[in-house]
């Protein structure tokens, strides 16, 4: 089956935040009164943007980036949530297999039961998306992030439904379909925008990290939206997972085999020496 994707068209988005509400509602993240104690830091920060950050119970939020256009205040709206990378740093560093690639759609799926709370995904994600509710003293934690509505028991895709955020979007700024189709559609949309005079319009996510499963139509550079221009799996993650860890297994194995060999040889040598000593007596 072909990879699936979400296409977010920032030029159609009105930032109604229906997606935010639908996401919380469907994924049962709406039970908390938004307070810091409940993990949602909802306070007025001098912007329409709210809450100010993702959390374990806020998997999607709209970012408002203020810009000046023709002397007037304007916004760039950015959908901030898991980008479902094809080459995902979080999957690479997750020690428990709690984060994995969904075979059917290519999404970065998540099995919360398997998460042991190490938080490596939080620190290695190039988009700064996963969040944990970590107890600083005991270290007990659980991560949470967008599962693209594939959470077991709440799986909309298996039921033939679109993700909740897409379903809720009134101006159709969010679309869900085969990834190939959406890439083509996104490119077409970029051409239209360019023809309308938006020369910096671009499609974000086609090739980033071998292809994101959330594609963005932007009217200016990703930078202007607060998105990383060239997101990468951190070099440390590659050095750690692909070099140091295999080396560690080899070293560990060689040590144990070497010690075993040493025991066999050294015991023989000792017995021989004792026998020689006896003979000399």
């Amino acid at each position: 089956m072909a990879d699936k994707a979400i296409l977010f068209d920032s030029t159609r988005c009105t930032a109604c935040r229906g997606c935010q509400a639908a996401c919380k509602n469907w994924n049962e993240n709406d039970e908390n009164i938004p307070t810091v104690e409940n993990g949602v830091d909802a306070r007025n920060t001098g912007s329409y943007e709210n809450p100010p950050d993702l959390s374990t119970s806020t998997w999607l939020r709209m970012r408002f980036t203020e810009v000046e256009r023709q002397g007037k205040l304007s916004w760039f709206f950015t959908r901030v949530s898991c980008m479902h990378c094809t080459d995902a740093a979080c999957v690479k560093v997750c020690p428990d297999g709690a984060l994995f690639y969904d075979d059917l759609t290519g999404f970065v799926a998540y099995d919360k039961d398997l998460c042991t709370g190490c938080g490596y995904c939080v620190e290695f994600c190039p988009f700064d998306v996963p969040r944990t509710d970590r107890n600083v003293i005991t270290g007990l934690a659980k991560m949470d992030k967008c599962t693209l509505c594939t959470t077991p028991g709440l799986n909309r895709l298996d039921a033939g439904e679109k993700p909740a955020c897409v379903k809720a979007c009134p101006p159709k700024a969010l679309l869900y379909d085969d990834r190939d189709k959406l890439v083509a559609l996104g490119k077409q949309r970029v051409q239209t925008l360019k023809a309308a005079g938006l020369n910096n319009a671009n499609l974000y996510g086609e090739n980033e990290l071998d292809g994101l499963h959330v594609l963005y139509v932007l009217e200016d550079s990703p930078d202007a939206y607060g998105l990383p221009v060239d997101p990468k799996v951190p070099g440390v993650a590659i050095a750690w997972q692909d070099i140091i860890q295999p080396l560690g297994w080899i070293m560990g194995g060689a040590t144990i085999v070497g010690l075993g060999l040493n025991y066999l040889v050294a015991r023989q040598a000792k017995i021989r020496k004792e026998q020689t000593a006896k003979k000399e007596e």
Partner: protein
Amino acid sequence: MAQEIVRYRKATRVLHHVHTAAFVVLFLTGLVLFIPQLSFIAQGGWTRVLHRIAAVIFAVAPVLYVLFNWEAAKKGIKEAFTWGAEDIKWLKAAPGYYFFNDESKMPPQGHMNTGQKMWWSIVLVFGALFVLTGIFMWFLKDILPAATFQWMVFFHDVSFIVTGCMLFVHIYLGVIHPLMTEAWKSITKGTVSAEYAKSHHGKWFKEASKRKPKGA
């Protein structure tokens, strides 16, 4: 009965066992992070709590030892980093001895032989690295830039691999190797026979027999 020489005082032995126990717990609760098939053990995060309890013991025990046994600690640390031409000779002769029982080329050793000094300096350096990177990962996670945290995890893992492998070597030499007949006794009872001291730590034996036997 043959003459016994004190090799490790009680405080040193207690520190050794406490530190080893803490390290084994840290090693096993850390190891589950490298074998996805074992991750079910870590579910619920109890291994993380255990890892932290052991980490406190691992970090605090040596500090207490140093505070109450300053002279011995100073001597011990100095010993780890005192290296000379004799050590090169030892390294060259060691395979012949440890495999083929050929003692002829082994230079007489001090209180610690070259191999023991290697392990001891690894314990000091990587032990400190463990504690330092661990403190960052435990308490400063929310404050640190992501890149710093990533390197902390990296070096924590490097320390894990080096000390983990060397721990096998250490246990093997202390308990299993056919020629290390009194190593286990020296760390449990604290003494070795004069005969063992003479053949394994010739230089130390000479010094120790000159003054009143004391050990480190």
